[in-house]
């Protein structure tokens, strides 16, 4: 088919050119970025040839920010200002973070999410994560030679709505267009499944630096269907380090260490853990700031014993996932191991014993998530049709509402395939009640106080009626990123009032803008230029998409007048796209979107009909 070329000068993403898209694994301990080049998913290295960026950020007193290796090297010397494992704080309040006393940070409690006081001021975990993401974005743009169209960012499957929203905010702050939040075990399954042409039901056991996920997936003919997921978003390699640390304190009779010594011993604990993967015994040697020498030997057996209940927690979650999937251990064809912490022999052994088969370790557990995310990013950017595979994921935790007596009414149950929506009707409790307070929660427990509070909002203006006669319909919508939005509407009166809420812990667009301005005060012009380029890129993509759609279906689905109207909107957009009038481009994009709404509907209808028409044939044959 002949394609009309719409090349506009100065645009980074010219039509039909390979669009630069990456997958990012924003890990607790290390982060990676990968892309698909020449059809092969590849991790991108930094200029020194390192693939893994330590997820460590240091805010130095002089205002400079160090990220990665250089920051990691300073974690013992400058523990207050060197933030490690920030992922554990994403979307978390102070009370959610256990063992705060052992962490060398100056926490600030803030509504929704804790903050950290550093020499560069108070920082939100979102800002810290954004620093890591910025380095990866810059690495990718340098290595690929252009601006990114977007990225797929991975999150633990068991991340709740608050943690997902925080991750998306961090990406926004880092100037990254998030095409999708993808669950880490699902990303790994894509990389593994496509690589091995796997068919059947697989378990992905993903134990990272700070999070644990278990996902059960059915792989068949290019479909990756998540049947169930479970996990613990505060269980990972860090906890194994912490057990060693506690063991050392006890054995050496130490207590009340200062922050330097705490960080020093935690760092040594991690090294000891890694040693014990390869050797039956290791020596734990450190000199405290007082000059006191800590010198202990640690055996693998002792390490296994002190961490056995951590391993047991992973198996407990695994049993729950299997039960939710209504499957038995014998139904699982293979167990894919993901995350650096699965290198520990006791984890390998426990998983092998549980499933009655040797776990699959043939992909690098540190890289497989980023590689899978890159494959997904390549499809979402439109570089490949993606017709040959389909990804169906689920939400990890039930979503519900508070009802009378502090009880939870589940609206969308865990392991529902996303995107998902469900409406529930409620009524008034008192005569003449004109407002209703709606409290959205996430979790499996019956009591509101045992679940995570996501958002509260009030529906006002309900017409005064007798108790029980108002009909309030509350609709939950979970999108393909696993993110929730809620709307409510009074039905009985015919007067509809509707509100859409974003969960309250999420940063508002204004807050993100402020953070952007704070962090790049000197680079404001760059920001404006970047925003313009992004708008131009989006406009160019839209023009291309509409043009393709018109060529495919314009003559069959639209009459000449309707086509002419769309073409006129396209011309209007083309007339402004190369200029610097950002609002004008935005308006023209919106106008074109509006002009194509009906056309898009017809195309979707046609596509749905075709899906089943083709299917009917195969039914007859079968």
């Amino acid at each position: 088919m002949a394609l009309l070329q719409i090349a506009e000068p100065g645009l980074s993403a010219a039509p039909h050119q390979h669009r630069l898209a990456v997958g990012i694994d924003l890990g607790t301990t290390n982060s990676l970025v990968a892309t698909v080049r020449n059809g092969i998913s590849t991790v991108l290295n930094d200029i020194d040839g390192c693939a893994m960026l330590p997820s460590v950020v240091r805010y130095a007193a002089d205002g400079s920010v160090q990220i990665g290796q250089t920051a990691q090297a300073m974690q013992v010397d400058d523990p207050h200002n060197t933030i490690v494992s920030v992922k554990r704080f994403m979307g978390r309040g102070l009370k959610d973070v256990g063992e705060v006393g052992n962490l060398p940070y100056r926490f600030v409690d803030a509504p929704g999410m804790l903050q950290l006081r550093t020499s560069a001021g108070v920082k939100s975990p979102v800002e810290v994560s954004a620093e890591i993401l910025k380095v990866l974005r810059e690495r990718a743009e340098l290595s690929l030679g252009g601006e990114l169209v977007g990225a797929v960012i991975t999150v633990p499957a068991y991340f709740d709505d608050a943690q997902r929203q925080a991750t998306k905010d961090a990406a926004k702050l880092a100037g990254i267009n998030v095409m999708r939040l993808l669950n880490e075990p699902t990303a790994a399954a894509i990389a593994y499944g496509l690589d091995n042409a796997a068919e059947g039901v697989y378990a992905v056991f993903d134990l990272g630096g700070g999070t644990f996920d278990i996902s059960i997936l059915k792989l068949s003919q290019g479909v990756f269907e998540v049947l169930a997921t479970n996990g613990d978003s505060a269980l990972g390699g860090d906890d194994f380090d912490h057990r060693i640390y506690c063991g050392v304190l006890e054995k050496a009779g130490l207590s009340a260490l200062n922050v330097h010594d705490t960080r020093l011993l935690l760092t040594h604990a991690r090294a000891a853990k890694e040693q014990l993967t390869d050797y039956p015994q290791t020596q734990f040697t450190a000199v405290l700031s007082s000059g006191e020498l800590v010198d202990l030997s640690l055996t693998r057996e002792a390490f296994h014993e002190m961490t056995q209940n951590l391993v047991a927690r992973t198996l407990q979650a695994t049993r729950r996932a299997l039960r939710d999937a209504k499957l038995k251990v014998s139904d699982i064809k293979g167990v894919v191991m993901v995350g650096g912490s699965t290198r520990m022999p006791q984890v390998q052994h426990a998983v092998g014993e549980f499933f009655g088969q040797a776990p699959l370790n043939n992909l690098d557990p540190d890289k497989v998530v980023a590689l899978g995310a890159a494959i997904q990013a390549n499809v979402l950017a439109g570089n490949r049709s993606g017709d040959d595979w389909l990804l169906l994921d689920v939400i990890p935790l039930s979503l519900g509402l508070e009802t009378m007596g502090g009880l939870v009414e589940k609206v969308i149950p865990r392991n529902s395939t996303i995107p998902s929506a469900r409406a529930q009707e409620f009524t008034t409790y008192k005569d003449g009640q004109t407002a209703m307070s709606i409290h959205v929660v996430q979790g499996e427990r019956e009591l509101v106080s045992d679940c995570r509070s996501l958002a509260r909002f009030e529906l006002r203006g309900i017409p005064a009626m007798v108790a029980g006669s108002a009909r309030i319909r509350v609709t939950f919508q979970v999108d393909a990123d696993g993110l929730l939005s809620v709307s409510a509407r009074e039905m009985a009166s015919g007067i509809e009032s509707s509100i859409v809420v974003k969960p309250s812990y999420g940063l508002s667009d204004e807050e993100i803008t402020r953070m952007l301005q704070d962090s790049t005060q000197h680079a404001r012009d760059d920001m404006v230029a970047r925003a313009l380029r992004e708008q131009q890129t989006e406009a160019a993509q839209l023009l291309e998409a509409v043009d393709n759609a018109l060529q495919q279906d314009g003559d069959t689905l639209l009459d000449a007048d309707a086509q002419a109207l769309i073409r006129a909107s396209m011309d209007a957009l083309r007339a402004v796209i190369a200029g610097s009038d950002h609002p004008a481009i935005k308006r023209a994009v919106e106008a074109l979107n509006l002009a194509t709404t009906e056309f898009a509907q017809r195309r979707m209808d046609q596509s749905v009909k075709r899906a089943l028409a083709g299917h009917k044939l195969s039914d007859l044959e079968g």
Partner: protein
Amino acid sequence: MDMRSADFQQDFFSLFNLPTRYQIDSIALEQSFLALQAKVHPDKSSHLSEAERRLSMQWATRVNEGYQTLRNPLDRARYLLSLQGVHTLEDSNTAMPVDFLMQQMEWREALEESKQTKDISALEELEQHVQHEVSILQQQLAADIDDTRDYAAASGIVRKLKFLEKLAEEIGSAFDELDT
């Protein structure tokens, strides 16, 4: 040529190209589901216009809802009855045959007891009993809806199954509790 409309309002059976019956071909259902998602899933339209992305999300949501409804026997029965204008009145009509209620009480006592004694095998046994009762009721449901079209009787069975579904959920939570 397929003349059916892909209207957003069409019922789930038409959407999945299945006859409007309680007894369905679950493999055909799954194949229709995958064929539809392969077209409408948001991953297929992320590089398209905003209008197409929004529609894709609405369609994918609807296809998931339909699949969930038709796949789950209780939801499917409830949905079929609602298409016939029959409401199962699960919240308001709590009248149950005495023998059914007695059985429920017995099972609930067994559940409490196995929770207290932390007896996993008793819990597994109870789960099997409940599962057996569920499958008997599902067979009756099939006969009432598909053969005799006795929707009043079918509604009664839906109400019973709702009880059993709750019990099964509680058994599931008990397994989780014992596993901590």
